[in-house]
Structures are given as C-alpha cells and as structure tokens.
C-alpha cells in the first residue's frame, strides 16, 4: 500500500502526512455520531419524554406537581367512545383517500406510460399539486369549496346541480377532506407507479404480442407483477402519512362541523393545546406512535425486500 515509488515521479507523494490516528472505525464514528446525536436529542428523547408523561396527570399550564397514575390515561383513552369515533373517522379517511389515490394515480400513470410523445411534460404538469405546501393546498380548496362564492358551487349551479355546503355539512365535510387529500397526493402514487411501469422491459410486451396475448392478459401477467411491489411501497408510505393527517384538517375544517372531520392527530392536538391535558395527550400520542411503528415495520420490510432484489 505504501509502495508509491512509480507514482511519486508524477505527483509528490503526500504519504508523510497520513493520519494514523484516524482508523476507519473511529472515522465512521466521527462522521456518524453528530447526525445521530441530533436525532437522539430531537426525535428519540422527546418520544421517551412523552412516554414518561403518559403515565402522569401532568398539565403544561398548571403549576401543581404531577402525579404518577400508571395506566389510567391509557385505560381512559382505550375505553373512551370519543376516541373510538376519531379512530373510525381516521380509518374512513385513510381507506377512502388511499383507495382513491391508488386508483387514480395508477390510471394516470398507465395512460402516461402508453404515450410516446410529451411524457415528460405531462408528468411534470401532473406533479404540481404534490409539491405544494399543505397550507397552500388547504387554502386553495377552502376558497374553491366556499358555500357562497366558491367556484365549485358556481359551476355546479350553472350545470343545474344545485350548491352544497362542502365544508360545513356533516355528511360532506369528511368527503371534501378526502377529495382534497386525493388531489394533492394522487401525483405521488402516479409518480411511483410510472417509475414501475417504465421499468417493464419492452421485450416482454413484444413476446406477448407475438403470442397474441390479450390486452388484459398482458396487464395481469406482465405489467402488474412488475409494478406491484413498487406500488405497495407507495401505498404504505401514503397510508402512514394519511394516518397522521393534521394540517389539511386544521386549515379546511378545524375538525368540524361537530367532530365530523376530527382525525386522531387533530384530537391529540385539541387535548394537548386546547385542553392542556398534557399527560393524556402524551398517552394518546404514544398509542398513535405504536400504530405508526407497526405500519412502518411493514413498509421497511417491503422496502428491504425490494432493495435486495
């Protein structure tokens, strides 16, 4: 390794300046630990603090010392009909939004993948909603769905469909949130499905053409098996994000009307920052984190399988 005699004729060897102190092991530690420390300080430690708080009746605004109450918070939450209601709202939202996004996203990706010209331009255009901040998206739609001067109602009236209270009608509000989330995140599924679709080798289609395979057979036995693993990753990723939805609800409906659009995240926020019941909110949060960890495990496992291929 130190034999640089021939090279030294071209460039002076800096061999004398080598740091023996920095072994690879130490170097790796030196390079990784700052990053891990920051994560530890701002991601892991807070979670453990929340775990500790979840066993107390601590309140962020009261000056009374908190009491250790073991699993009382958890017991209350798991038996509370309110929490069950929020869990069902969240479930409806996740299932509704994700199925719509998957269906639409995959359809658009499939249609784009069949075009030869203008593919890049089309993809770029379709991706715009995804890059916008949830604040911007929420405001766009709050304006468009406004009952009085919203453009959606205006169009619906001109078409003779009558108008609706999109965000303040108890039956429509959750649907509206689902639609807005779908508008923003369909491009995400589309983008990943498109990556899968363009990875399908052309010769497979050519071979199936020679065999006179039907369109459906080709889709079912060539396209889908190749796109499926990638699509699953996208769907799981979206499911995790949809489960923790907060910002859209905050801007569009504020959880209302009543509690029609109150997701679990929004309920945690209300418990912590409006009710100042910090201990209970922490327990609530810990329960949510457990769900996220389970979902993330599925995600990471599939991801691992995909990467090893």
């Amino acid at each position, binding site marked *: 390794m130190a034999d640089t005699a021939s090279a030294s004729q071209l460039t002076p060897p800096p061999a004398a300046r080598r*740091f023996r102190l920095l072994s690879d092991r130490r170097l790796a530690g030196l390079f990784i630990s*700052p990053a891990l420390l920051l994560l530890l300080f701002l991601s892991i430690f807070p979670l453990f603090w929340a775990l500790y708080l979840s066993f107390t009746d601590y309140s962020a605004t009261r000056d009374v010392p908190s009491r250790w109450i073991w699993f009382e918070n958890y017991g209350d939450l798991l038996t509370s009909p309110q929490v069950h209601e929020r869990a069902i709202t969240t479930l409806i939202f996740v299932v509704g939004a994700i199925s719509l996004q998957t269906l639409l996203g995959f359809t658009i990706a499939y249609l784009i993948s069949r075009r030869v010209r203008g593919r890049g331009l089309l993809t770029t255009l379709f991706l715009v909603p995804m890059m916008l901040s949830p604040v911007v998206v929420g405001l766009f739609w709050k304006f468009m769905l406004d009952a009085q001067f919203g453009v959606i109602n205006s169009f619906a009236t001109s078409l003779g469909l009558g108008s609706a209270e999109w965000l303040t009608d108890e039956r429509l509000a959750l649907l509206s949130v689902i639609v807005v989330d779908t508008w923003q995140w369909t491009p995400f599924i589309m983008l990943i499905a498109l990556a899968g679709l363009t990875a399908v080798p052309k010769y497979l289609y050519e071979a199936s053409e020679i065999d006179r395979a039907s369109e459906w057979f080709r889709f079912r036995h060539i396209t889908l098996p190749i796109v499926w693993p990638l699509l699953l990753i996208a769907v799981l990723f979206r499911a995790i994000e949809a489960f923790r939805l907060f910002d859209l609800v905050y801007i569009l409906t504020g959880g209302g009307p009543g509690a029609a659009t109150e997701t679990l995240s929004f309920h945690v926020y209300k418990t912590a920052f409006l009710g100042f019941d910090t201990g209970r909110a922490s327990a609530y949060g810990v329960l949510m984190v457990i769900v996220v960890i389970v979902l993330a495990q599925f995600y990471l496992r599939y991801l691992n399988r995909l990467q090893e291929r």
Partner: protein
Amino acid sequence: MAVNLQPREVASEGIAGETAPVPGVVRRRRRRVRGIVEIALLTVLAVIMLFPVVWMLETSLKDQRDIYAVPAKVFDFSVTLDHFKNVFASDSPVVEGFKNSVIVAGSSTILATLLGVPAAWAYSRFKIRAKKDQLFFILSTRFMPPVVVVIPIFLMYRDLGLIDTTLGLILIYSAFNLPFTIWMMKGFVDEVPAEYEEAAMLDGYSRVEAFHRVTLPLLVPGIAATAVFALIFSWNEFVFAVFLASSDAARTAPPAIAGLIGGTTIDWGLVAASAMTFAFPVLVFAFLVRKHLVAGVTLGAVRR
C-alpha cells in the same frame, strides 16, 4: 430498386389488403380510436388536476369585485397586480414570514447537509455494526406523527427558551430533514465506486483526503439535489411552525399565510397572492430536481 427486393406474391397481397380490410387494418383502426380516447381522458384529468392552481393564480390577479363574482368568472376578468403589491407592502402580515422562512429553510438545509453528507458517506463505505437496522431506524424517526412529537418538543423548548425563536425551528427542521438527507445521499455515494477512493489512498492520501479530493467533487450534483429537496420540505412545513413559533418575530410563511383566514373577513385576493408567491419558488426548485423526484418524495428510499 426496392421493389425488386420484394417477392412478387407478397407485394400483390399488400395491394389486395387495401381493397378488402384484413384483420390487421381493423386492429390498427381500433388502436387509433383507443389512442384518441386515452388522450382525451388524460386531458380531462390534467385539466382537473391543474384547475385549482390556475384558479388560485387567476384569483391573485383578479379585481376585488371579480373574485366574489357569481357565477365565477373564468376568462373575462380585469387584471390587477394590487394583491401582489399588498403581499410585499410594509404593513403586510406575511412579508416578515417570508423573511423568516428563507432564514429557517436555508439554515436548516445547510445544517442537515453538513451533518447528513458525512454520515451518508460513512454508512456507504464502512462496515458498521447493524448498519441496516441503524438506517431503517433513522428513516423511521421521520414517520412519527408531528403533532405527537411537538408536545414534548414544546415542553423541552419552553425549558430551554427556544420557543418562538428561529433557532428552535432551524434545529427541529434539521432533525426532520436528516433522515431524508442520509438516505438520499447514501444512494448517491453508493453510485461512486469505492475503488476511486482506494486508488487515491494507494497514492498516499488518507481516507478523509481521498473523500475530500475524489468523492466529494463527484457528489456535488447529488448534494445539490438533496439540498433542494430539504429546502422544499422545510419551506413547506406547517405543524412545527404553527406550534413552536407563533409570535410575529419568528413566524414563518406557512402559519403567517394560514393566519390570513383567521379573521372575520377574509381578503381572498391577498391569500391567493401570498399562496402563489409562496408556492412559486417551490415549483421552480422542484422543476430543477425533477430527475430525482422519485427518490426525493420517498425520502430516498426508492431509487430508479
């Protein structure tokens, strides 16, 4: 000349095919109809997807009266730049937010890059115990619900005096972008052959020098793309911003813009103009890194 190359029988068959349609022609025609249907469908979907953006752009340019016109005016409205002027006026409630956003997004991106790039390089090059578990663990911190994380962070920041400071936001955004930066950069480092560094080390450079002189220059485009994504993520972030920095001094643009709809009367022209001003740089940046979008939006997990 070319005619001579083709056997006579085949050529005459081709001519016969034109007078009486053979299955091939029917199939071709059906394919063309299908193509038109597909293009029509794509156009409709594209219009639906883009309409809200176009509508907001129109609203930001419309005269105050035309904004609330019923039925809505799509094409014939009087154009004005007043709303954009209001966004940057001295008494504007959002202009301070934009300044803070630039500081917070910029600094947190720099910090995340400075911490993330060396870590990604180390994860890519060295044998590290339980490397895969560490990497998956790092990624999973990004999945935590922000509303849950913000509760203990809020208490912690209150004790440390970081509430309502840009520094507090910069730190939390760096932590929030770090998993992404590490995963994304590890992909880019993996693409640079380790042999380059080994060759440099044979020439007598130390590991660090080899990284600095050989690998780092090759990573510049990757670092740029990663930084742009981190910039977009911090720029767009809302939950931490609204809970950790609600005072005017440290408030970033997203809560400031959201604050515009808090009052009893809402100036939708100003909201639209602020939202467009806020979204414009994101769209430009996203366009610059469009090649890396798949990796970017999956936090560096999926690479194609």
